C-alpha cells in the first residue's frame, strides 16, 4: 500500500455521511444488500469507503493499516447487514465499528507505521506549499494525541459531528467529549504555535 489519496472531486462528505441518491434509494439498496445482493453491497462500500478509510488513516497515521481496518469494518458490516435499520443507522454503525477497529489496531501494533501519512504523496496541487506543510504538521500533531482525544478531534473535524454524536459513537458521556475536545484543541494550539507561529482561535 503506498497511496492515500486526498478527497475526490465529489467534495467533503460530512454530517450523515450520505452523498448519492435519495433516502428511499439508499434504503432500498440497504435492503437489497441485506437480502444478499452483492451489487447493492458494493454500492454501499463505494458510498462509505472514504469515510471509513479516512477515519482509520488519520487515527493510525498509516495508510496500510487504515485499509486493513476499513476492510475489517466492511466485513463486519456484511455480517451484520440484517441488523442495520436505515441509511443513517448504517453511517453511525460504520463509524462506531471503525472506531473500535482502530483502537484495537492501535493497541495491537506499537511498531512504526508501514506507510506514514507524511510519506504519502498528496495530489493537492491547489494548496500553496505552506498550507501543505501546515497540513503535515497538523496530521502529525493529531496523531500524537492520546487515542480517545485523537478520535474525538477526527470525528469533530473530519465528520463535522456534534458533541452528542461523538459521545454516542465512542460510548462516553457528552461532558467527557466536551472536556476532551477542549483539552485536545488546547494542546494542538500550543504545539502548532510553537511549530508554525500564531494561530488565531
Amino acid at each position, binding site marked *: 500500500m503506498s497511496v492515500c489519496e486526498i478527497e475526490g472531486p465529489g467534495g467533503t462528505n460530512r454530517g450523515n455521511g450520505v452523498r448519492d441518491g435519495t433516502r428511499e434509494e439508499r434504503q432500498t439498496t440497504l435492503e437489497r444488500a441485506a437480502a444478499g445482493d452483492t451489487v447493492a453491497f458494493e454500492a454501499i462500500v463505494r458510498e462509505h*469507503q472514504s469515510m471509513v478509510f479516512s477515519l482509520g488513516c488519520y487515527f493510525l497515521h498509516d495508510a496500510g493499516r487504515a485499509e486493513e481496518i476499513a*476492510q475489517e469494518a466492511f466485513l463486519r458490516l456484511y455480517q451484520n447487514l440484517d441488523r442495520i435499520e436505515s441509511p443513517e443507522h448504517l453511517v453511525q454503525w460504520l463509524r462506531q465499528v471503525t472506531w473500535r477497529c482502530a483502537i484495537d489496531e492501535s493497541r495491537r501494533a506499537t511498531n512504526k507505521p508501514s506507510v506514514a501519512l507524511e510519506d504519502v504523496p498528496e495530489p493537492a496541487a491547489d494548496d500553496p506549499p505552506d498550507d501543505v506543510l501546515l497540513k503535515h504538521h*497538523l496530521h502529525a500533531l493529531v496523531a500524537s494525541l492520546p487515542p480517545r482525544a485523537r478520535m474525538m478531534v477526527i470525528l469533530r473535524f473530519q465528520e463535522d459531528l456534534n458533541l452528542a454524536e461523538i459521545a454516542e459513537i465512542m460510548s462516553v458521556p457528552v461532558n467527557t467529549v466536551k472536556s476532551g475536545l477542549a483539552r485536545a484543541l488546547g494542546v494542538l494550539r500550543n504545539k502548532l504555535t510553537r511549530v508554525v507561529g500564531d494561530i488565531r482561535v
Partner: protein
Amino acid sequence: MRPLEDELRQALRRREPPPGFTGRVLARVRREADARALENGGGRAQVARRPLWTGWSWFGARVRFGFAAVAAALLLAVALSVWQRHRAEQERRQGEAARAQVMEALRITRAQLNHVRAKVEAATDDGQRERLED
C-alpha cells in the same frame, strides 16, 4: 492564517482509499462468506448469515455431529483394544520374569543341597573307616 478549527477541517478532509479498495473488500467478503458457507455444510454465500439452527444448516450440523460421534466411538474402541493388548503383553512378560526367577532360585538351592550332601557323605565315609581300623 485561518483559525485552528478551520485548519483542522481542511487538514482532516476525507480521503479516497487506494485504487482497487472496493474490489479487495468484496473479495475478502466473498472469501469469508465462502468459508462460512463451507462450515455450514455448503450453499450460497448468503447462507453464511443464516442462523445455525434453521433449515439445511441445522440438518448439516446434526449430520456432522453424528459423524463426529461415530468417529469418536470408533477411536475409543480402538484405543481400548490397544490398551488391553498392551496390558496382556505386560502381564505375560511379568509372568515370564517371575518364572525365570523361581527357576534360578531352584537351581541355586539344588547346587547348595548337592554340596551339603557331598560333605555329609564324605564325613560318613571317614567315620566308618576309623571304626574299622579300631
